[in-house]
């Protein structure tokens, strides 16, 4: 697949209020292929919005180069930006214009005119589910509706490449679902390439063909969700709650490990009298039945078992030493 966006060696330093430097981006290389949905996952302050600002030409990097569809963003900014649609993290629309007027204005700026413009506006209103409220001013919209309009404006002109910067922040689960679905439809219906930033592991995991993990301005890992898990060497995690903790002790835990012939690591999940056992194994489901058998043999009754497969959250924890949400 061909590369649509290529960013090389991006650096950006801000000044803190006290004048000390803050490295918001450090040597970020990013390549996004045509037709893919790329999820950029990182906690608050990781540098996602800074990166988006730079690759949309709003902010000059201290160093580095951005090429979109073969056009250097610095040397040929208009051609490069012509391929772009940006959905900013913060709402960016005219509160005093109606939904339709907002779309029309930005559509015209992107060069759409006449019947084509009107048709795109209609389609977009349909797409973001605002057709019935299109004549109302944006200031009368709910937060979720504004977000949808905010998204619509970025998509109206059917750009080849769309940046969506945390589009689901502050919306209810229903609207969120709708937004996620619409991202998938963008590619399915129009073949758009999407760069999607989020601090939510589930979103990155659900949408992305590839995920980049960013923290403290560094892109620390990149790949499919499966790749990343493998890269981090993560194991499944089994959590077993016992009916009573009576006979549970360290010796018993070792006995269990032996019973599983070393395929798993068995620990107590918290103080021993809580009656919780944690098991880490690379193939969690396969050891489930021997594990329960062994527990029964030891006279322990199982109340519940949770199997947690490794996810980006645990990968992130593993790679950075801190949780995604803190």
């Amino acid at each position, binding site marked *: 697949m061909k590369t649509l966006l290529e960013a090389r060696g991006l650096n950006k330093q801000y000044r803190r209020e006290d004048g000390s430097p803050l490295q918001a981006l450090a040597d970020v290389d990013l390549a996004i292929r045509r037709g893919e949905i790329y999820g950029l996952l990182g906690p608050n302050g990781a540098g996602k919005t800074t990166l988006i600002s730079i690759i949309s030409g709003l902010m000059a990097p201290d160093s580095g180069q951005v090429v979109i569809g073969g056009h250097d963003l610095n040397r040929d900014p208009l051609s490069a930006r012509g391929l772009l649609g940006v959905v900013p993290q913060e709402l*960016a629309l005219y509160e005093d214009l109606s939904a339709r007027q907002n779309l029309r204005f930005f559509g015209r700026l*992107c060069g759409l005119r006449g019947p084509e413009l009107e048709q795109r506006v209609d389609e977009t209103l349909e797409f973001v589910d605002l057709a019935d409220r299109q004549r109302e001013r944006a200031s009368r919209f709910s937060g979720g509706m504004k977000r949808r309009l905010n998204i619509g404006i970025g998509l109206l002109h059917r750009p080849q490449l769309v940046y969506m910067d945390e589009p689901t922040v502050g919306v209810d689960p229903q609207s969120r679902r709708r937004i996620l679905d619409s991202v998938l439809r963008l590619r399915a219906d129009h073949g758009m390439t999407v760069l999607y930033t989020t601090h939510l592991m589930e979103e990155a995991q659900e949408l992305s063909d590839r995920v980049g993990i960013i923290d403290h301005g560094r892109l620390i890992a990149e790949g499919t969700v499966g790749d990343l898990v493998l890269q981090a060497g993560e194991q499944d995690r089994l959590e077993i709650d016992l009916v009573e903790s009576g006979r549970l002790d360290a010796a018993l835990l070792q006995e269990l490990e032996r019973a599983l012939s070393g395929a798993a690591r068995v620990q107590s999940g918290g103080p021993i009298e809580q009656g919780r056992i944690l098991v880490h194994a690379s193939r969690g489901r396969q050891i489930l039945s021997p594990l329960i058998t062994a527990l029964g043999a030891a006279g322990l009754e199982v109340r519940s078992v949770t199997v947690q497969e490794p996810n980006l959250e645990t990968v992130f924890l593993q790679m950075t030493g801190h949780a995604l949400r803190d």
Partner: protein
Amino acid sequence: MPAAAILIARKDLYLRFSNRASLLFLLALPLGLSLIITLVFGDLDGDGPAALKGIPLGVVNLDEGTAQQGRPINYGAGLLQLLTAAAPEAVAGAGAAACPYASAGGAVEPDLAMNELFSVQEVRDVAAGRDLVNSGELAALVIVPADFSTRLSPQIGPGVTILYPQAPASVEVYSDGSRALEGQVVSAVVAGYSERLLAGNIALGAAINGLIVQEPLAALRLAAASDDEAISAALACGFADLASGAVADVHQAGPVDDHALRQSTRVLAFVGMAQATFFALFAAQFGVLGVVEERRAGTLQRILTTSTTRSAFLAGKLLGTWVTALFQLLLLLIALSLFASLIEGRLFFLWSASLPALFAILLPLSLAVAGLGVVLVAFVQRVEQIGAIGALVNILLAMLGGAYGFTVPEPWSWLSLIYWGVEGMARLGAGDTAVGLNALVLTLQGLVLFGIGLWLFRRRVEV
């Protein structure tokens, strides 16, 4: 102008004029300001021109007189007599109505008798007279030069050649800048008199009779000597157009600065135009605040992620602000005119000497203030900063432009768009449409300011 700039300006204007709050602001500001100006400076209790009763006026008559065909003539004495005359039609005489030119210079035609309008005091010494004006005792001093009569008299040369007019007869009206209106009235009367001396106005009194006898004779001779169409036409009007300005040059002078604050026909007009210019500055800054608001709302950034350049964006803002400032200025001037009409009891428009000339000032003036606004927003990040920095810049410009009553040496005041605006409007107020230089300087200032603003705006790392 790129299409994007026009789109942005159109959007701004739509938002401004469709939003009730901002529309109210757009309308209320000029209307309120003109009402305040009227209340403060308009003469509400007096009923129009009658309020100008008894203007204390000094006359120094240095006229040595002349003789025409053996008859002694002293036009200076005639002027003095006119100013103290009891007949109301003394100035607006019968001859004036017949000729379109005849009233051109007489901006004020009072319904009052001259002796009601002026309280005339004859002064012997010019210096003493000036002192009386300076001390405020007199509103104005009319200085009739020694050669007044001589210069107003046609010199008939040998044969049929007529040497007419000579160098203009020069009457000085020395008045106090703070009594602009009264000085203006005096000037108008003197100008009217001088003109009518040559227009063959019969109503001017005994002292002029000699002229009336002479004038048709001279005219006939001239007609015989020349088939020049312009001169013939002039003759039809009894020399009126030759007279206006060319023959009798009534020039005003004053103890205060006599060029920056040219007298206008109305105090209201004078205060109004200075205020209008000053006001335009604020109007424009309000308009350009939109840039800061759009930055805060994120729409600026959004626009710049499309293929719209920063230049196009700023040009759009300039255009929208320009139109808004022009609209507000016009509104202010119309409102002031209406208020003034109410006071005068008849409908008339201030500064309406020439509509093209009015726009020749207003268009570049609004452009210049809009340009200034653009420089400001290119500098600052936040709305509050614009308020503070904007006020500072405005005060500085007002100071340079002489809006605070003291003047700054010439080349410095030229830097201020206020100077050019006020000066141009003052010309219009005085019926002078030669505002080309003002228009040119203001346009250049507007473009240069916009250029600087654009340069600053494009240099920003972050919008």
